[in-house]
């Protein structure tokens, strides 16, 4: 019985963190999947969202800026606004250049944001991070507090999914894929390519900020390691590409699937292998996930659920 309960709690935590990754993957899908914008700085936006929401909602502390004790919902909205604003600034500068430049600039912004979070100790408590972040439903009895948070995360995933599916099939989404496929033709059709790209980039960044905020509340703690490119940026890319870039269902599926693999292999290796090998096996895990990404890129570029092309409204012809 105890074991079953343990497994139940593990599945709840898996779905909570998997759901947060699904939000990140949906955010990346708006940028990369729909519009072809390569954001290599997901970690930075994620971390800023986490810090903004954490600082706005925690009780006063001498170690960092804060003491506003605002409701969690306000913290999450503020996280989205701030990350969206940073995304807008980055977009204004780099969006007209080719994808590679955006990738370099975003990896740079993520590193710079990490430096700020680490060095501005008066606001962020530096490397020690912000702790005692309030967690929604934490006053409910075990396990309902965990289940409550999981349901909150999953319902945010569901709402985002519905909104993004709507956006994808709306004229807005069609302009996005037009820009991705043939920028010149989209421009010739009179579309303001820069404006649409910035919209996609800002929306995606705000969604990543939301995921960051949720993580801070879920873990009750946040430190500059949240901006670690490996677990935040790289894993999200792998999730989206394996699930199916351009497909919202694929983004969610890829996130839950890869998070399960990532976390299950971590537990398996730390339980089964002696300590020195457990540390080494972490590197093997990264290597294998990189290899899976390369194989998917080369052999199955569409991922598990490839992007479905929109059908032309009537006449039964499927359009490109």
């Amino acid at each position: 019985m105890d074991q079953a309960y343990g497994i139940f709690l593990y599945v709840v935590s898996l779905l909570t963190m998997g759901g947060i990754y699904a939000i990140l993957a949906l955010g990346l899908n708006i940028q990369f999947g729909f519009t072809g914008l390569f954001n290599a700085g997901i970690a930075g936006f994620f971390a800023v969202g986490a810090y903004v929401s954490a600082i706005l909602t925690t009780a006063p502390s001498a170690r960092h800026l804060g003491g506003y004790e605002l409701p969690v919902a306000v913290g999450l909205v503020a996280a989205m606004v701030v990350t969206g604003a940073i995304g807008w600034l980055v977009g204004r500068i780099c969006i007209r250049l080719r994808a590679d430049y955006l990738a370099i600039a975003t990896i740079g912004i993520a590193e710079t944001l990490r430096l700020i979070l680490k060095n501005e100790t008066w606001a962020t408590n530096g490397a020690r991070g912000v702790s005692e972040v309030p967690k929604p439903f934490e006053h409910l009895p075990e396990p309902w507090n965990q289940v409550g948070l999981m349901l909150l995360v999953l319902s945010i995933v569901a709402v985002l999914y519905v909104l993004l599916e709507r956006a994808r099939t709306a004229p807005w989404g069609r302009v996005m894929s037009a820009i991705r496929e043939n920028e010149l033709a989209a421009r010739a059709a009179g579309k303001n390519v820069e404006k649409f790209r910035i919209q996609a980039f800002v929306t995606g960044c705000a969604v990543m900020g939301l995921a960051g905020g949720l993580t801070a509340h879920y873990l009750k703690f946040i430190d500059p390691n949240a901006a670690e490119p490996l677990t935040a940026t790289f894993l999200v890319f792998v999730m989206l590409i394996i699930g199916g870039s351009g497909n919202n269902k694929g983004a969610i599926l890829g996130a839950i699937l890869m998070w399960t693999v990532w976390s299950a292999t971590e537990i398996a290796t730390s339980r089964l292998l002696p300590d020195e090998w457990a540390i080494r096996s972490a590197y093997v895990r990264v290597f294998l996930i990189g290899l899976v990404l390369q194989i998917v890129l080369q052999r199955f570029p569409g991922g598990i659920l490839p992007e479905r092309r929109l059908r032309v409204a009537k006449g039964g012809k499927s359009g490109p």
Partner: protein
Amino acid sequence: MMDFINFHLMPGVILGSIYALGAIGISLTFGILRFANFAHGETMTLGAYFAFTLVQLTGWHPLAVLPLAMILTAVVALGVDRVFYKPFRAAPAIMVVIASFGMMLMIRSVIQFSWGVQLKSLVPGIQRPYILFDALRVSPKHMLIVGSALGLMLAVHLLLSRTKIGKAMRAMSDSPELARLSGIDTEMVIRATWVVGASLAAAAGVFLAIDTHVETMMGFKLLLPVFAAAILGGIGRPYGAMAGGLIIGIAEELSSYAWLGDGPLLAPGYKAGVAFSLMIAMLIWRPSGLFRGKVF
């Protein structure tokens, strides 16, 4: 004044020559293969670790094993290109950028697995700097670094200007279609690009390791300043990359000099942000770089 030269300008020149070597490779691959190679930082790390193992095996000075470390790194780069980048030659550039992003983590995890994550030093012990004219501090390892870096840059210059393959590389960087039409073997040029880029990256990694230590994240920390240097100099412009590297290195070190008042102008913790700011400024005002490189 001497403090300025000893503790800001000189370290800037040393760091700058390391950046310059790394930036040449980034700039050439960007210009010739047309993609931003995110695995370039890890190539530098790999070169440093090859040198570390060779020094352990032979007991020679790092500079003596440098050529072999450069060759080994170039061989790895050629293999990586064959298996992971070549399938994307005709595909949109974004595919190969993602592939290189994945490669960055794969190479790093191989290094972490094989050598562990503890700091290692390439040259044991501390060297005392020479004091010239009673005030100028010059340490022998720094003279070696700057001297060898200049030598390698001269070699690159001779390769690009005097040899057939060098001219073909420049032609392909200027216009791949025209190069192909004039009968240049493009795959040959691509292989030459990897050899030049990876061996210079290995040298940059070894020089950084001589100056500081060997560490698994050293290449990733170099990646951003090296990209900044390549963009500053102009993509596809090796001479621009050299100039850009020196500018970025010197600017990073000068940023913590007490220009105004007594304290450092910029807290040393933000040194790494200087390269990024210069790069962003360049992207806003002159994306083609100082040497009129390419903008994609």
